[in-house]
Every structure is written in C-alpha cells, then in structure tokens.
C-alpha cells in the first residue's frame, strides 16, 4: 500500500479497494515502527489523522469527496496547522499551537488530504543538512549515517522511507530540491508567488516558496495543482489561473530546447554526480530534446548575494520572536532587555543566530549600500541571465547539488562549505523561476538529482520533462534498502 502512487491511491479509494482509514492507519503504523530510526517527524497526531480519515471515508461514501480525498500527507513543520503544534524546528516555537491553518494546509485539507503529522526541518529552514533542528537531526533512509539534506529533510526522509506518500516542503535557496536529490525524490519549487505564503513561517520573505516532495513528477503535479493559486491573504501571490499540470505531463519532448549552463558543470561538482547528470541529459536527447551549452554569467555571484539577502530578511522576520506574546520566554527575566536577550539566546540555535547577526550587520547604517543594495543589484543581474537564456532555450538543466548525501558533521563545522551545498539551486530563488529535481542515478548507492529550471510560471513544462524522463528511466522507482 505504501508503494502506491497518488493516482493509484485515489483510484483504489474510489473503487473501495481499501478505505482512507486503512491506508491512514497503515502509514501511521509505519511511522511508529520506522521513524524512531529516522526522526523525520516532530509531531504525529494519530487521533486527528484517524478522525480525518473517517471523515474522508464518509465523504467518499456520500459522493462529496474532494480530488485528493483520503490521501495521507505529511506537512513540513513550517506550515501552521490549526490546533497542532508548529515548531519550525526551533525551541522558540516548541509550545506554539497556531489558531489557523496555512493556506497550503487549508487547500489540501479542502481537497481531502489527511494530515499524518509534521515533519522535522532545519531550524527556521536555515540549513542544508537538517542538523540545525532543535529536535535532532533527520537520518537519510538511504544511509542513516548521512544527512537527508535540508531544510526540508524531514519531509524528504518521510517520503523516501514510504512513511507518507507525499509531503509539503519549502524552498528558500534549495530546501526542496537538495533534499530531493539526496533522498532520491522528485521535488518542485514553484515560481515565487505561485503558492501562498500565508501561514508559512517566514525565513526570507522574497525567496520563500512552498512546494512538494514526492516520489514522481506525476505525484508532484497532482499535489501542486491542489496547493497553488492566488491567495488574497498573501500580497505577493500571483493572480493567474493554475493550469492542469497533470494534463500536460505526457507532452512530446521532440524539439524541446534544453540549455545546460557551463557554470553548473564546474570543478566543484562531484565526478559521480557529473556523470549521472550527463547521462540524464543524454536520455533527454534520446527523448527528442535538443541539449546545448548556455551561460548564466552571474551564477558565481548567486551564493554571496543570497547570503546577504536571506539573512537580512530573516534578521527582521525573526524579530517577532521576542518572548512577549507567544513562543519561548526565558525563566525569571530581570527586566525587558534581559527577557529579550535570554529568550532569544536560549530559544534560537547557533545557525539562526549567525544569520540574524549577518543580516543585522548587512542592513546597518553605513553597510546597507555595500551589502544589501549591492546584493539586490546582483539579484537583478541573475534574473536577467535567466531572462536572456529563456529567449533561446525552453528549460535549463544541470545538477541539483554538488555531491550525494554527506555524513553527519562533515560540513556542519564550516558554514561556508555548507552554504555551497545550495550553489546550483539558489539562483532560481533569486530569479523567482520554478525549478525541480528528479532522481538521475546512484553514486556509491546514494541518489543523485538533476535539476530542471523553467520559465516564470511554466511549472507545467518542467513537470512534463521530468515525467517523460521518468517514463523512460527507473531511477525514481529505486528505494532505500534496510528500512522495512
């Protein structure tokens, strides 16, 4: 049951081959049995999940079922869930129970999804290995001595270990695509503004975007269609109709122009990853696409620009966590300053503090022009690179991460090494364009991802390319051993 695609689950539920209660119970049981070895979930609410499953069964019986009625799902713990703790991987929100649902959660619930629980993540989505979570690291199901990637490591590990058929996730600089690559999944970060940020706890507002971690492009297309769309509660959400992503999955790739940025196949890339990505590109050519080299000349500036803009925004987004109204408050504050200082010192972890400090510095009087303004200028140049490239190609392809999953502690001692994990993914966030990662091979038994970047609002195209690729290959069907 846990190997079924979303489409298969839907039709099985429709044909009454099993009930929503049965499949929900099945996944809850797997979580209870397997997750202690992975730590993918921070909250599992069995009673709420079972109640949701019963309601789904009633709707199925009454013929009032939504399009995803009875499909179990896990939500990254960055999405607010009404009445269910939402910690964002932080001690700061260890006691925070939102009185509202994020728009993403609300829409998926309306479509009939049954929430299994909330998945672990790097604290406030700041990290590329899931090692910054206050609730402990998540283990990669492919090798439990290795990281699952981050920040959506919990969602990735949960889907890879078949603890949930699909999960929501967020991506600010690669937090969906890099864990997708490291866990052998299909993960899509849509166009900035395609999915509402309302109720999604902010890391860097101008870069954050909700998306999906799934086992196939077809599953991702189905779920994204139910999540996406304009939301009046998010002023940056795009008021444009959402196409039927599933309808265009099978479109022919003949004549499709794919550009491979020469800057993405550089010295920093793991040779095994490079081989796998080149093989993937060859497969796309066999499917009719024309692959050619292009240049995104400002790519090398994307990591430095990102590590000014994202910390700058996070430094003020996280100012609200002050111990006054909700969240962690230190014991026995002596005065206001003491309450602020100790609540934040005790409530936030090191990586979060590092970024708050960097961001505060970058926005300070006398430094703003040198850092923040300069970074915004670079951001515009990077967006122009994509604009120019998309005048000549339809899709841009390359690696999703520099190497397969690394060991715990291998990169966490040096922040800059860790930041380079996102070297291929950050540009899409800076430019706001959609991008996904598909499994493209195994290196020493570990999955490798190929990234596909599309034009603004052209999610349908990259999902189509990923789906056709998955029709011709079986990398996405490989599963980690030693879990069951």
């Amino acid at each position: 049951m846990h190997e079924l695609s979303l489409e298969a689950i839907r039709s099985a539920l429709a044909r009454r081959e099993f009930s929503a209660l049965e499949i929900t119970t099945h996944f809850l049981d797997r979580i209870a049995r397997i997750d202690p070895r992975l730590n993918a979930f921070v909250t599992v609410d069995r009673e709420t999940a079972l109640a949701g499953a019963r309601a789904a069964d009633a709707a199925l019986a009454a013929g009032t079922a939504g399009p995803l009625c009875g499909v179990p799902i896990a939500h990254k713990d960055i999405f607010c869930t009404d009445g269910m703790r939402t910690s964002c991987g932080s001690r700061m929100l260890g006691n925070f129970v939102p009185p509202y649902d994020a728009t993403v959660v609300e829409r998926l619930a309306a479509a009939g999804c049954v929430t299994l629980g909330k998945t672990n993540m790097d604290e406030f989505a700041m990290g590329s290995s899931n090692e910054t979570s206050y609730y402990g690291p998540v283990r990669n199901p492919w090798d439990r001595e290795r990281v699952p990637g981050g920040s959506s490591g919990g969602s990735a590990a949960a889907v890879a270990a078949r603890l949930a058929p699909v999960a929501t996730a967020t991506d600010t600089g690669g937090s969906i695509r890099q864990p997708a690559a490291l866990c052998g999944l299909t993960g899509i970060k849509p166009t900035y503004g395609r999915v509402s940020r309302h109720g999604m706890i902010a890391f860097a507002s101008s870069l954050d975007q909700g998306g999906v971690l799934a086992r196939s492009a077809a599953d991702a297309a189905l779920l994204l269609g139910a999540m996406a769309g304009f939301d009046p509660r998010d002023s940056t959400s795009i008021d444009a109709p959402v196409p039927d992503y599933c309808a265009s999955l099978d479109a022919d790739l003949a004549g499709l122009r794919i550009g491979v940025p020469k800057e993405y196949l550089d010295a920093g890339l793991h040779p095994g990853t490079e081989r796998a990505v080149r093989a993937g590109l060859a497969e796309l050519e066999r499917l009719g696409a024309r692959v050619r080299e292009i240049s995104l000349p400002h790519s090398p500036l994307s990591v430095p620009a990102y590590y000014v803009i994202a910390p700058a925004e996070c430094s003020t987004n996280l100012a609200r966590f002050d111990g006054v109204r909700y969240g962690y408050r230190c014991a026995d504050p002596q005065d206001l300053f003491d309450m602020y200082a100790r609540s934040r010192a005790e409530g936030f972890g090191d990586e979060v503090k590092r970024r708050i400090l960097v961001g505060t510095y970058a926005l300070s009087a006398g430094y703003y022009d040198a850092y923040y303004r300069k970074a915004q200028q670079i951001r515009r140049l990077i967006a122009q690179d994509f604009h120019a490239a998309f005048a000549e190609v339809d899709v841009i392809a390359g690696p999703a991460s520099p190497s397969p999953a690394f060991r715990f502690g291998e990169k966490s001692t040096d922040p800059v090494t860790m930041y380079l994990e996102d070297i291929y993914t950050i540009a899409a966030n800076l430019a706001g364009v959609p991008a996904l990662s598909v499994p493209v091979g195994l290196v020493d038994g570990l999955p490798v991802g190929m990234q596909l970047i599309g034009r603004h609002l052209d999610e349908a195209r990259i999902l189509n390319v990923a789906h056709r690729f998955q029709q011709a290959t079986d990398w996405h069907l490989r599963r980690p051993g030693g879990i069951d």
Partner: protein
Amino acid sequence: MEWETVIGLEVHVQLATRTKIFSGASTRFGAPPNTQACAVDLAMPGTLPVLNSEALRMAVCFGLAIEASIAPVSVFDRKNYFYPDLPKGYQISQLDHPIVSGGRIRIELPDGSSKTIRVTRAHLEEDAGKSLHEDFHGLTGIDLNRAGTPLLEIVSEPEIRSAQEAVAYLRQIHSIVRYLGISDGNMAEGSLRCDVNISLRRPGASAFGTRTEIKNVNSFRFVEKAIAVERERQAEILEQGGQVVQETRLYDPVRNETRAMRSKEVAHDYRYFPEPDLLPVHVDPRFIEAVRATLPELPDAKAARLRSEYGLPAYDAAVLCASRELADYFEGVVAACGDAKTSANWVMVELLGLLNRENLEIGDSRVPADALGTLIRRIADGTISGRIAKTVFEAMWAGEGDPDAIIAARGLRQLADTGAIEAIVDAVLAANAAQVESYRAAEAQKRVKMFGFFVGQVMRESKGKANPQQVNELLRRKLDGE
C-alpha cells in the same frame, strides 16, 4: 539677543478606516484591551500584511487636497526596532518612496496676514500598540488594539517661525482632514499627534541651528507652550555660549518644561529596507482622478466663497470655515433668514459661546440651523427685539421648542400698538415729574444721558416688549415737544 525660531512639524493623523491598515481587525477606539487585535496584529508566525485600499484612498485624498504629487509607485519599508508594543519587531512605514510629496498648506494668522507652509511629504504607516505601566504592580501590560491602525505622517518643511504659526498649521491640517472625512481629528483620543522639530538661529542667517525634536505633543495648547519653553531653553544655552544637543525631548505639561528622553528610549539605527511582504503600490492616474472628483470644498475655498457670496469679512469667514459642519450650519441659517451678516454674528457670538461654555461640537448644537434662521427673521420682521431674541435663543437651547412657540407661550411678542405704548409713556412721565422737570431745564448735552433714563423706565414697564423705536419717538415728542 534676537533669535529666529525655525520649526518643522511631523503630524501623525489617524485615518478613519473601519479596519486596520494591514489586517481586517476593527479600529474602533476604547474597546477592552486586546479585543481588536487579530493574528496579523499579534504578528503570529506566518501571517502577512495586506494593504487596506481605503487607507491608500485617504492618503491620496489628502495629497490632492494640499496640491501635492501622488507617487505613481510608492514603496513600504520596514523600520526595525524592538519594543514590547511593536509586535513584529518592525513598523511598516514608507521611507524613500512616500505616497504623497510636495504639497502646501495655507495658514491664516491672527494679525490678518496669511502664509504658505510647504509639506515635504506624507506617508502611510501603521501605529504601534500601547504599553500600560500602571495597574500591573511593576509589570507592563500590552494592549494591541491600536497596533496596525493606519497613520498618515505629514512632514512640513522647516518654514514655521513661531508657536502661533505652528498652531495655525496644525489647526489647518486638523480642519482639512476633517473636511475630507479621513480622520475624526480627535486629539484626546490620539487621532492627531505632533512631533515638533525646533532650532534657533540669528536673524538673516542661512544655516540652521542644531535642532531638538519634541515627541508626541498632543494638543494645540501644548504645542504652543512646548515651543515657547523649548525656544527659551535653547536661547538661554546659546546666549551663554553653549551648544544645543541634537536629541529627542518630551514636553511635560505639568511642569511646563521639556526634558531629554533617556537614550534607551531612542533607537539609533532602524535598518530600513523595502518590505518584502508587500509589493510596490502602483496608483493608476484614473484612480487619482476618481478621488479628485470626490473632493469636497476645502476650508480655503469655502472661506473665499463665503466672503464673496455673502460679503463676510475675512475673519468671520475663517472662523465659520474652521469646520465643515460649522460652515454648513451657517449656510443653513442664512438659507432660512436671508441675512448673512446677522447670521454670522449669531453663529459666532451666541451659538459658539454656548457650545464653548458646554464644551460641545457644532454637531451637538441643540438649536437647528433653520430654527436660528426663523429667530433672526422674527427680529427683522419686528416680532421681537434683538434683546428679547437672546432670551428666546436661551429658551430654544433649553429645549422649549421653536422660536414662534416660545414667543407665543412666554408672551414675548413686541408691543407695536402706538396707543398702548403711549399709555405707558404717559404713565412713566407722570410718575417721574421731577425728572421731567430737570430734563427740560438741562443743557442739550446732559439731556442725552437723561433721555436714556426714560427709555429704560418705559421698557421696564413694558417688560421689554415695547418697540424701542416707537418708544424713542414718543418720548422725544412728549419731552422735547418735537
């Protein structure tokens, strides 16, 4: 030594939207603490601001009223500082690209002169909550009802030169926002708050002196007094050869002094940057024209019209146009009686006198405009004298009904029957034979004063109802033999 006072004002006007600038919570004043703060106002994680288009419309309205330019694209910024009543840890405001820039406000001064003060800019921002330090035994209570209330911050050029000008400028803004209906202007409830920037320089100097900023001066009277004492303080420092420290000060109305705020109360680096949760605001020229079409007649234009249409003196016109309601009331009185000058006198002297005495607004007047018009008509048509009219007006204020009913019920109709008045005159002359004797013996100059005595006696006998003109004529005939 002689000093020129240089003043610039930052006026915060609370806009009268039903809901907050970035959330759907109500802005009603005076609700129990924290009952009008939604998840957005509490800065709950994941919540996002959405601009209230009504606040934008009101800002555009103000901009057009002061002949300013409306930015085709304006940008919201975050102003970062920690304070317990600032839930997000930043205030959403506008720094480099305000919605309104470059307007002008004309002020009328008591000496009859007028002056134009230029407005640098006006921008939209959100208000913070309130910290309540009393009643919590050493702790601080936070009320977030006010958090997110829309404010329009109006910044003047440093072109104000006296406390009087500052007050006139503030009154004019008060009047404009009330005319436009974009604020209730209620200073007691904090709907209009003022920061005063003030510095001194020698007359003729072109460079500005070092300024201080007096925060949150919240009444016309306090603005006047705060400027006076701060001016004196700075002059004293300068005359002793000292230097004014650039700092933020508070005005203490009890001790009538300004004092420096503790440095902890002043944030130094607000780390402004564009608010990524809100897109730049694009204002369509067609929208601007649509707002322009809704602008009411503004105080200056209305005063000019009252002068030309009714021949009122500038001073009367200015007083009557201080509020739209007062001007409307005046025009209602004129419409009912047709005599503008008398109407102006009655409204400015009798009506405003009673309103001030009872601390009421024109909207609270217990005498409707048409009733006052009727009263004035009764003077003109000789039904009552001007003096009796004041009695009738008091009775109208006391709720005794319309003027005709009061005149009838109290028997105040003027005696116009010559026979009846003559009988009273004859009786008075008979009863005061000695005075009549000495009157006739007196010189012409003395007679004037003595004549008044007889008039007074007749009026008293008639209980004020005798037509004064007839009384005069009869007395003159009988005493002087004319």
